[in-house]
């Protein structure tokens, strides 16, 4: 007689959210620069031209201003809107799984900081991808940030860990992005990646997204584990 064993299968997953935002419009460039504490420029602002400010800058700097100054700035900037939002799942690659097992069960060095990077169009992620070798995608680095952006976790609770504040990219040129990944080191393409690890990567569910200079991209990644 055949006996079928009910085998529970543990699951390790990642659910990502990416949101693209257009820049803010600035109605009085000189005054806004002054209110933000930026130095006056020799170059004159052309009244006939529109000026923009990355949403990432405003989100970072506005809370540092006094309430009155913030209100004044608020009257002079407007117009940023969410361009798109995408949620997608990742593949936790073998390198990431080995790392997970190694640091948890085999006394290997713990990675204390993880970073989010961006992939090229239509990435094909496979289990064998590593940070060094990934034939199905390349890394996109058209953003102001010097390195991949830190993924700051909020601690593990109920077999889940996420970054409560999105990892934020300020886009520096027109670029098409296809997905994102989590890596253990932050230097972008062109720097040695051999010492780092790739944990997971995934492609946007709704396809590639194009962003322009001064757009802001917010990425949130939530990783979960379940016994069954």
């Amino acid at each position, binding site marked *: 007689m055949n006996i079928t064993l009910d085998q529970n299968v543990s699951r390790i997953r990642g659910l990502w959210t990416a949101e693209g935002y257009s820049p803010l419009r600035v109605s009085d460039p000189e005054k806004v620069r002054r209110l933000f504490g*930026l130095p006056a420029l020799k170059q004159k602002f052309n009244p006939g031209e529109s000026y923009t400010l990355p949403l990432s800058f405003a989100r970072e700097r506005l809370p540092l201003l006094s309430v009155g100054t913030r209100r004044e700035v608020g009257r002079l900037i407007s117009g940023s809107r969410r361009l798109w939002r995408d949620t997608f799942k990742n593949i936790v690659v073998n390198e990431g799984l080995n790392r997970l097992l190694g640091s948890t069960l085999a006394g290997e060095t713990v990675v204390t900081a993880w970073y989010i990077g961006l992939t090229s169009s239509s990435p094909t992620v496979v289990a064998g991808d590593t940070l060094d070798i990934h034939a199905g995608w390349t890394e996109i680095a058209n953003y102001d940030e010097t390195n991949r952006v830190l993924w700051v976790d909020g601690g593990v609770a109920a077999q889940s860990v996420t970054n409560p504040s999105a990892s934020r990219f*300020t886009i520096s040129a027109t670029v098409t992005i296809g997905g994102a990944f989590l890596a253990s080191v*932050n230097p972008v393409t062109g720097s040695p990646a051999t010492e780092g690890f790739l944990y997971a990567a995934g492609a946007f569910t709704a396809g590639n997204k194009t962003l*322009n200079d*001064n757009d802001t991209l917010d990425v949130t990644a939530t990783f979960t584990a379940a016994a069954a």
Partner: protein
Amino acid sequence: MKEKVRGRDSFAAIESKGRSLLTFDERHILALRKAVDETTLAVSRCQRLIDEQTVLLEGWKYQAADARQNLERAMKETTGRTQ
């Protein structure tokens, strides 16, 4: 450091959308400042791990010394009984 694709113009054009209020250098400095903040955070996390591991290490050292003493005592007792 990664290469910048943008030119070094004061105001980088954003196609027909408008011009950036921030200069290239200002954006670069902002990015560097963010990198400093992130690295500082990574350092503090690493330091916390070192501190935790140091406490663990001291605990293991104490346990190892204790276990060695127990072994030596047991060996002496055994030797005494067999002689």
